[in-house]
Each structure stands twice: as structure tokens, then as C-alpha cells.
């Protein structure tokens, strides 16, 4: 006891008084903070997009060249569902089920990215809309591109987890870590809902 | 607490506090009082134009409120430091541990909020008076275009184009003759500021800003560009020449005339056209129609060169034409590598542009 730093009496009783001391998980707080700050970055790009709507001096204009990406959106939003199912499987300790749904999430993400890539290809080569064409080009590519880059990062995280799972390195105790990846993924999907609404519905 | 005892002993601390307070009071008062009245001094409290006068009166009110707050809080702070300092005669007991007081907190929240509300209302009123003023019938309209590092000045109704010097008529009891300015920029953000005539308004590309001035006393009112715009931001000076209505009309008439050919300076005139001067400068009455640099049609009617960097004397004009980079390094008029004779001829020609 003499090696203890503190005199015990007042603190000992405090220790027993607060035996049930439960604070939020630091992982969750950290990831939520990250999501908060990333959401703010996205908001600024959305503000720029909305501010510059209708202000391009030359074409092409949104209504001329944009087609609503229904399939891509359905894929991306479904991937939120599949990742939830993957987590449920993980909790049930069904490794096969987990890998199946997690893998499906990855595939849906890839499909989304492929759609984005093909749309950009069309816009650049056929419609001649690049980031330097006009204000619409600048704001469109930066906003959608920022989102796509976040999808890519998410994809890397998802793939990493799948590989680790296949290698047998993911244990039940890692449930919270997986949850954090899925929170990031849900965030990416939520941002897409906003981007989709602003760019393809309101902005056109 | 014994006040007499407090001042009787000569502790260094008190000396310092006393000296500091004196200093605090003396410096600003002295500063402004000492500022002389020469026409180069642009004291924002010695104003001569309706919007600037509004600002000056309003600002004195704000200063008074802030001074009152300062005196109150600073006195409290000094009192607390002196009254509640630990004395050598004190024992080791801790003072009464007070944790807070809701009533006091309420009081010193409500009072500042009230001050803020009053101040905000006065502010709103003054803003509206200045920003929402309408031009009376005799108002003069001018457009100011900011360039890196000079001012283009156009009077669209009068067909006058000049640079760096803005001439305006004064208002008097009989008639109000304010000048309403439209501000545009040809490149980056600048700011038009003539302290004795108005607050500053930024000059921003792809945006039209408006402001107005209304001097009452003829004179020269200096100003500066007040938004950092690159290398020679420091030398983007403004000169507002306020004149009686008659003088202003005379000036306008003179400015409206195109330049006339003068055979004596034909050599210089030809040099002007042989070199690339015409690609930047306009001289009405000739074919020179460049837009990048100042209009030179009535160059000699202006008091300064290079937007205030030098007075418009023959020597300075010669120096400028020989190598503008010597007077205003980084400005966009290059060194034309002219020989002495060429410079003399050019200057002789330019001096006819009255």
C-alpha cells in the first residue's frame, strides 16, 4: 500500500462508490467525430454546388447531360443492408454467412464505382464536360468525386476485413471494430443520398 | 482597507500600475490630438462628407460605450488585485470558498445583453442611412475600375475617362451634389478607401459594388487601396479632388476634349506609336486605344504619376518613362529600354497632353 500514489481512504471509498463506471467506447466516439468532420467537408462542397447552380456561363448544363443513376444508387443503398446482415451473421458466429454478405457489400460497391466511372467516361468523351469546362463541371466532379473517393477508401477497408476474415484472423471480440467499418460505410451511403438529391434531383 | 496606507508606502507594484494607467490614457489622446490638419493627414475623425460624418459620430458613441466598460471593469480588476492580495501578515488559512452566485451571474449577463441590443439598434440605423441612400438629381455618377495597381475612373454620363484622380463637386447649402460610385475590378480584389469621405468598399471582380461620397469643403482627399492586391498594393493611392461646382464643370469640359496634334512634338508622338505604348494606353484624338494601362489623354492634368508613387513633375515623368520599374518595381509597365533622346522626345510629347 505504501507504493500507492494516493492516500487511500477518500479515494478508496470513491472507488467503491463508482464501481459501476461505464463510459462510451472510445472507438465509437472517435469514429463519430471523424464522421462529423467529414460530413462538414461534404456540406461545403454541397454549398458550393448549390451556390453555383444556374451560374455557368457556358454549357453543357445539368439538364442536358445528367441521367439519374438509379441502378447505382440502388446498389449502394442495398450495400448498407448487406453490411448489416453481415454483422448479424458475425454475431451469430457464422463465418460463412459473414463472408457472404460482406463480400456482397464489396461487390455492390464495385458496381457503384463502375457506374460512376462509366458515367464520367460518357460525360467527358461524349458530352465534353470536364472539371474545367464551366462551374457545373467544377462543382459536379468535385462533389461526386469526393464521394467516390470515400467509397474507394471504404472499399479498401471492406476488402481488408474480408481478406483478414478469410485468413482466419477475425475473432468475435472484433465485433466493435467491424461495427466501426460499417458505420463509416453507412455514412458514405448517407452522403450519397444527399449528393444524389442535390445533383440529380434538385440541381437538374 | 486603509486607502491612505495604500498610497503612503512606495511599492514598485503601485508605481507600475500608476504609470501604466497614465500611459493608457495618454497615448491615444495625444496621438489624435497631435495629428495635424495638413491635407495629407487622413484622420477618420476629421471627416468632410456625409457618410464619413455619420460614421465618425457613430464611432464616437461606440468609443464612449467601450471606454465606459473599460473604466468600469479595469477599476474592478485593479481594486480586486490590491484589496485581495495576500499580505505578509496573513496566516495560512484559505479564504472562504465561494462557488458562485446565480443572482450575480444573471446581473452581469443581462446588463451586457442590454448594451448589445442598444448598440445593435444604433448600428442598424447607421448602416441603413449609409447603404440605402438614394442619389438626388444633381448627383454625379462615376465608375471606378480597380486594376493591379492603378485606378481607372470613368464618368459614363459625361464621357470622361481618367486615372487615379477622382474629381467631384462639393455639396453646399443650396444643393446636394454627392458622387455615387460604381466599383468594379479588372483583376483581383481591391478596396476603395478615402477615409475622410467614406468608409471603404471592396472592389471585387465579377461583382458590382456601390458607394457614395459627399464632400462639403473643396480640397484634396488622399486615399489608399485597402485590400492586399499584390506587389505594389502599397502604391495604389487615390486622390479625390473636391472642387466648387464651377471648377468641376471646367475640369469636365477640359477632360472631354480629345488631344490635339502638335507638330512640335511629332517626333515623340511617332515614338509613342512606334513602340508598343499604344497596346496599353489610350489617347483620345489619336488611334491609340489600349485598355490595359491608364488613359493618357490628359496626363498632365493629374498631380501624380503611377497612382501616387511620384509627383507629376518633368523630372519624375522623365524617370518614369525611362524605367518605371525604378519608381514602382513590379508594376506592369515594363522597362522599354529607351535611349536618352527617345525619352526626351516622348516626354516632350506627353507634356502636351494637358
Amino acid at each position, binding site marked *: 500500500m505504501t507504493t500507492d500514489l494516493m492516500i487511500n481512504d477518500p479515494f478508496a471509498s470513491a472507488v467503491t462508490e463508482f464501481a459501476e463506471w461505464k463510459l462510451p467506447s472510445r472507438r465509437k466516439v472517435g469514429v463519430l467525430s471523424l464522421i462529423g468532420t467529414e460530413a462538414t467537408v461534404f456540406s461545403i462542397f454541397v454549398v458550393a454546388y448549390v451556390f453555383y447552380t444556374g451560374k455557368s456561363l457556358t454549357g453543357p448544363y445539368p439538364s442536358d447531360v445528367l441521367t439519374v443513376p438509379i441502378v447505382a444508387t440502388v446498389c449502394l443503398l442495398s450495400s448498407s443492408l448487406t453490411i448489416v446482415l453481415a454483422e448479424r451473421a458475425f454475431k451469430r458466429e457464422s463465418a460463412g454467412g459473414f463472408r457472404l454478405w460482406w463480400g456482397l457489400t464489396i461487390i455492390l460497391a464495385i458496381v457503384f464505382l463502375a457506374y460512376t466511372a462509366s458515367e464520367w467516361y460518357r460525360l467527358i468523351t461524349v458530352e465534353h464536360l470536364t472539371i474545367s469546362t464551366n462551374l457545373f463541371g467544377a462543382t459536379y466532379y468535385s462533389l461526386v468525386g469526393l464521394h467516390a473517393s470515400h467509397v474507394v477508401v471504404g472499399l479498401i477497408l471492406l476488402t481488408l476485413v474480408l481478406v483478414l476474415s478469410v485468413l482466419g484472423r477475425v475473432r468475435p471480440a472484433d465485433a466493435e471494430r467491424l461495427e466501426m467499418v460499417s458505420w463509416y460505410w453507412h455514412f458514405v451511403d448517407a452522403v450519397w443520398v444527399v449528393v444524389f438529391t442535390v445533383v440529380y434531383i434538385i440541381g437538374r | 482597507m486603509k486607502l491612505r496606507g495604500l498610497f503612503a508606502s512606495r511599492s514598485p507594484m503601485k508605481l507600475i500600475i500608476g504609470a501604466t494607467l497614465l500611459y493608457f490614457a495618454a497615448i491615444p489622446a495625444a496621438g489624435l490630438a497631435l495629428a495635424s490638419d495638413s491635407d495629407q493627414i487622413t484622420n477618420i475623425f476629421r471627416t468632410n462628407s456625409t457618410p464619413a460624418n455619420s460614421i465618425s459620430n457613430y464611432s464616437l458613441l461606440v468609443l464612449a460605450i467601450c471606454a465606459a466598460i473599460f473604466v468600469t471593469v479595469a477599476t474592478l480588476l485593479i481594486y480586486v488585485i490590491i484589496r485581495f492580495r495576500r499580505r505578509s501578515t496573513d496566516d495560512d488559512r484559505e479564504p472562504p470558498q465561494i*462557488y458562485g452566485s446565480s443572482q450575480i451571474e444573471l446581473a452581469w449577463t443581462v446588463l451586457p445583453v442590454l448594451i448589445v441590443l442598444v448598440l445593435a439598434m444604433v448600428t442598424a440605423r447607421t448602416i441603413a442611412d449609409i447603404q440605402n441612400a438614394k442619389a438626388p438629381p444633381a448627383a454625379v455618377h462615376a465608375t471606378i475600375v480597380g486594376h493591379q495597381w492603378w485606378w481607372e475612373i470613368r464618368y459614363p454620363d459625361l464621357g470622361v475617362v481618367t486615372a487615379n484622380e477622382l474629381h467631384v463637386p462639393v455639396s453646399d447649402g443650396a444643393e446636394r451634389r454627392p458622387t455615387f460610385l460604381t466599383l468594379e475590378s479588372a483583376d483581383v480584389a481591391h478596396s476603395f478607401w478615402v477615409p475622410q469621405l467614406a468608409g471603404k*468598399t471592396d472592389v471585387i471582380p465579377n461583382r458590382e459594388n456601390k458607394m457614395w461620397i459627399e464632400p462639403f469643403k473643396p480640397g484634396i482627399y488622399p486615399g489608399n487601396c485597402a485590400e492586399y492586391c499584390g506587389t505594389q498594393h502599397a502604391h495604389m493611392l487615390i486622390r479625390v479632388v473636391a472642387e466648387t461646382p464651377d471648377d468641376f464643370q471646367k475640369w469636365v469640359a477640359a477632360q472631354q476634349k480629345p488631344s490635339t496634334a502638335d507638330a512640335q512634338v511629332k517626333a515623340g508622338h511617332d515614338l509613342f506609336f512606334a513602340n508598343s505604348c499604344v497596346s496599353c494606353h489610350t489617347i483620345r484624338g489619336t488611334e491609340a486605344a489600349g485598355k490595359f494601362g491608364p488613359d493618357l489623354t490628359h496626363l498632365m492634368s493629374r498631380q501624380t504619376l503611377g497612382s501616387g508613387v511620384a509627383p507629376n513633375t518633368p523630372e519624375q515623368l522623365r524617370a518614369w518613362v525611362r524605367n518605371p520599374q525604378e519608381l514602382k518595381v513590379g508594376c506592369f509597365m515594363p522597362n522599354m529600354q529607351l535611349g536618352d533622346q527617345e525619352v526626351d522626345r516622348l516626354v516632350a510629347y506627353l507634356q502636351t497632353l494637358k
Partner: protein
Amino acid sequence: MATASPEIVFPQARERFSVISLLHELVVTVDHKKLGLMYICSGLLFFVVAGLLATVMRLQLAVPNNDLVEPDTFNRLFTVHGTTMVFFFGMPFIAGLMNYLVPLMIGARDMAFPRLNAFGFWIFLFGGLLLYFSYLGAPGLSGHGTAPDVGWFAYAPLSDRAFSRGHSTDYWILSIFLGGIGSSASAINVIATVISMRCRGMTLMRMPLFVWLMLVTAGMILLALPPLTAAQVMLLLDRFLSARFFDTQAGGSAVLWQHFFWLFGHPEVYILIIPGFACVSEIVPVFSRKPIFGYPVMVAATVMIGFISMGVWAHHMFAVGMTSLSNTFFALSTMLVAVPTGIKIFNWLGTMYGGKIRFEMPMLCCIAFLFQFLCAGLTGVMLASVPFDWQLTDTYFVVAHFHYVLIGGLAFAIFGGIYYWYPKATGRMLSKRLGLWHFWLFLIGFHLTFDTMHIPGLLGMPRRIYTYGPGRGWEIYNLIETIGVFFQIAGTLCLVINLLWSLSKGAEAGPDPWDAWTLEWATSSPPPEYNFETLPAVRSRRPLWDLKHPEDPDWKYE
């Protein structure tokens, strides 16, 4: 000093490392204390460098039509000075305070994410070095020296490719971008630490006020940096990919840059000053021998400042030509944010009232802070008064105002923090004699320079001019301002000497030299790597007061 202390036994002091192993330790460390000190020392180094840049500027401006430096050189000086002071002195210094003190104050062993902490430090340092590398970096069109010269807020379109050729502005963008990532990392770390790692019994309302204020600061960092990051990405896209964000020829808006920048820029200055408040909130109670007056109100006021400060940004843009309605709105919001700030001043006064004030170095610095911050706040109210601002903005009055806040306020609070916590970090007391020399020299210099500086602003002197003509009435004031710089240099030298000399020659500090009440004083000086032998548990805001005064503990009254 204190009444008979309880018997406390401390672990042995460590043996000295060799230089190589010390350097290695610094490079690989994830210990919050070492990283905190590294942040602080790097910040101080950048402070000295930026101060030297300012000295050159003041020498150039001491007399009219001076030609000590060329216009472009001067323009680079003020750009790099401002950028360094805000991003590479201010932000890292507060990151250092956060990282060093927060775990100790909440009774934790380290931050929530120690490796993220290290990452944040190294990326900040890289960013700072990148900014200075620009002096040597790839030559631009002008040839000599290519440090950025667009001002620390780099207004578009001056900072866009058409008007800022070469790569100087790109260095500005990238160095701040990296610094911003470092700051965000620190902020996430602090939030997670404070929410998730408080010791037993330490509810949010029992944390030291310092920790609360750092929590608010961290939250503000996460909300305020994104607009800057986004704007910088847009500017980079403009400069490298010919995007049109700020290209006014293509319909882009110069004012949009200003909105985005100041959306960041205004909360940023609160992010800088609130840690100053945090230091003062710890020091004033200890040296007045009373608890902080109105702890819950202080918390509420700070949170309010955090929120309101996100809605005042356009007070930097009153001259831009916004509508009278917008101008009035931002005038009102700016004046409103003065209310919680004023409340804090009153609460510190209330803490001192009825106390037994000890004029040790930390307290002297805080008293100077109180006077100076009061003045700075009032000049801020003047600047919030829009029509007055139409004369004052973009003049030396504004320069005087913000240096008053940042030096008169933040720097003095930081000095107080240094004198207060140096003994904890090193185990040695700083020399009071040298401290007094530092304090008075610096104070005189600060006032000579920055009190005087208000006057040229009132006499029409705009900002960011490399020289001025005679006859405008500005000469005498500029000369006095320059003289003041040398007093500040002398004072700073005293501080640096003190910091270095006291490392080996200072008096032994012991765990609690100031008879303070928060948990960092409950461990040895310097603390062991694991901070506390056993993690503490607390029942009140001042756990050490409870220990020292078992007959009259705080938790009976809170």
C-alpha cells in the same frame, strides 16, 4: 503553503538517456507527454522564427519610403509570418497543451489513440517545414525566393493561378492542409479521450474547466477546419486542373472564397484563444486560493461561444458589399458573442474577489491577460460596429486588435501556463528572477508596439503595405512600434534562457509546488510514463482539495 500534506511516496526519477536513444525515443514515442512537449517545443521554435520575420517587417516600416526589403519580399514576410503564427505556433501549442495535460487531469494513462497522436504531430511538423521549404522550392516566374505572398488568408482570385504564378501558393495550400489534418487528428483524440477515459467519479461536470474548454475547442476544430480544407481543395483544383471555382472570368465568385475561409477563420481564432482561457481558468483559482467562480456558467458560456462563433464569420467581410440586412445580422451576432466572453472575465474577477492573491509568475501573466484581453475584446466590439468597421477594417487598427488578442491575450495566458506547468513537466521550478525580467520586458515591448499601432489605423494606414510616404502622419507611430519589438525580443530571450537554464539548475519542484487541486498535481514531477500508479477516483472538481481538507471537502458543497 499547504497544511501538513499527507504522506505521499513517489517512484524514483529515471536515469538520463544518451542523446541518440533520446532522439530515437522521440521519433517512435506515442506517449502523450512526450508528444505534448514535442508539440510545444516545435511550436515555440516556429514562434521564434515567425517573430524574426516580423522584426524584419517592422524594421522595414520603421521609417517611410524604406528600402530594407523589396516589395515582394515584404509581401512574403507577412504571409509566412501570419501563416506560421496561426498554423504552426498557435495550433500545435494548443495541441501540445491538450495532449500533455488532458490525460493527467482526467486521471487516465494516455490519450484514446496514442498512435493517432504521433501521426498528428509528425504530419504537422512536416507541414510546417514544407511552408519554409517554399523559400528554397522550385523557382516560380519571378525567380528569386518563392515563399507564398498572398497573405495568410489568400483571397481569391489573387491566389488563383492567373495572378499567383509558380508554386508559392501551392506550398501555402499544402502546408496548411497537412497542418489541418494534424489538428483534426488531435481533436478527434481529445474528444474520445475526454468522453471515454475519465477516471471513476469524474462526471463531465467534475472535470477541470481546462478539460471542458479543450473539449469545446476540439469540437470547434472538427467543425471549423472542413470549410478551410474544402476551400483549399477547390483552390488546388483551380490551380492544377483549371477548375472554375474562383475564376471570376468564368462566373466564379471571389466572395465565395471569403465566405469559406472566414467560416473557418473566425472559429479558428476562438479555437486559438479558448485554450488561453483554459490556462487562465486553472491558474487564477489556485493563486487566488478559491474555486473558480460559477463553474457551470463558465461551461455554458464556453459552449455558447463555440456555437455563436460559428455564426459571425462575415464580420471579416463588412466591406465586401453585402446587403444592409446581412451586415446588421453579423454585427448583432458578433456583439452577442462578446456577452459570454465578458461573462468569463467577470467570473475570473469573481474568483479573485475575496481571495488571497499570490503574485507568482503564472498569476502575473494572467493578470496582464485580463487587462489586455479586456482591451482586445472592446476593440473587437468597435470592429463589430459595422460603420466604424468600414473605416477600421483592413487597417492597422485590425492588426493591432488581433495582435492584442493573440499576444496580449493568448501569449500571456500561454506564458502563465508555461510558468505553471513547467515544474510538472520537468520537475524543476523556473527562475522567478528571470521570469520577472521576461514579463516586464515583454509587457513594455508589447504595449509600446501594439497600443501605438491602433493610431495609424485611425489615421488611415492600410494593412499589408511594404512602405508608406511621409506626410501621412504615420511615421512616429511606426517608429515607436519598431522600438517595442526589441523589448519583446529581449523578454523572449529571457524566457528561452530561463526554460533552458532551469532544466538543470532550477529548484526541485516536487509533485505539487503551487498547492493546487487537480489531478496532474497528484503524481510526481515529471510524471512517470504510466502517469499514475493506481488510477484515481474523484468525488468533486478539486480532488486534491478534498485530500488536503478532509474536514471540509468540496463534494459537500457542489
